[in-house]
């Protein structure tokens, strides 16, 4: 009972913080549209990482992701006064970034005569794990190591676009199923299926390396070459 009350209290506090944030952002948007253009810095600053992560989930390489992020922020500024507050400001920014990234990718692929659909993995049938490596909890300090961060990024990059983008929006950006479904333009059940498969595929690719080889100082490629 006490736990439930604490949960309710925490939930109320979070909703309060969320509504306060939305009110603060609405005020800043109003200021920018009224001509105080520098206020746009303040509005975008908390979401830089979110914008970058969205861009890299599509582009896969840091240089392209940075260009996409810059272009998306410029577009967000140009269209800010048209923002109606129907979604959170952060979701709107992610949507702009995602669209920008996809547009660039399409252009690049048209140039290479490739289709994005060629790389989609089938979503039919059950997922069978490749192995049952026992993965003990990893100390979070491991993420301070460049090699580990790179291995996680490589594993994410190895997923097909649909899985990768869903995983980044849900598990990296912590967007809801509904928000992710709106941004990607797919149904909510499809978001859940893709997320499920992305997580299991990543586990398959990361588990043997993280638990065995990386922590013993051997290169992860020896454990699993993806």
């Amino acid at each position, binding site marked *: 009972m006490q736990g439930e009350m604490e949960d309710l209290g925490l939930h109320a506090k979070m909703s309060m913080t969320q509504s306060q944030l939305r009110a603060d952002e609405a005020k800043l948007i109003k200021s920018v549209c009224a001509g105080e*253009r*520098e206020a*746009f*810095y303040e509005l975008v*600053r908390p979401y*830089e*990482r979110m914008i*970058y*992560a969205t861009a*890299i989930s599509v582009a896969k390489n*840091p240089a392209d992701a*940075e260009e996409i*992020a*810059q272009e998306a*922020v*410029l577009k967000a*500024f*140009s269209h800010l006064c048209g923002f109606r507050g129907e979604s959170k400001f952060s979701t709107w920014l992610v949507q702009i970034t995602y669209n920008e990234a996809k547009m660039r990718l399409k252009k690049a692929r048209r140039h290479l005569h490739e289709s994005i659909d060629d790389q989609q993995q089938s979503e039919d049938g*059950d*997922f*069978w*794990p490749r192995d*049952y*490596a*026992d*993965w*003990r*909890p*990893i100390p*979070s300090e491991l*993420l*301070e190591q460049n090699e580990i*961060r790179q291995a*996680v*990024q490589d594993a*994410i990059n190895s997923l097909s676009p649909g899985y990768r983008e869903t*995983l*980044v929006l849900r*598990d*990296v950006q*912590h967007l809801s199923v509904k928000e992710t479904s709106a941004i990607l333009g797919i149904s909510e059940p499809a978001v*859940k299926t893709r*997320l*499920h498969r992305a*997580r*299991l595929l*990543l*586990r398959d690719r*990361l*588990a043997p390396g*993280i638990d065995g080889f990386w922590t013993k100082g051997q290169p992860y490629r020896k454990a699993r070459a993806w």
Partner: protein
Amino acid sequence: MATIEISCVEVWREISNYLDEEISPEMRERMEAHFKACAHCTAILDGTRNVVGLVGDGRVFRMPDGFSNRLYKKLQKLL
């Protein structure tokens, strides 16, 4: 009441929903009974939970050095 048994394939199908707490209390109970008896599925559950923790950590997608400065320089031209 006895918990109805569930197969490994059914458990794998629901692992993600289990982690997101998007399954019925009955299904949760069946899965938990399965995890107690199945080391393979427990390993998959632990690994999947670790994946969610790893990718959700802000450090995985670190922005390149100087990212903010370059972004604001670009924006400055427009402002």
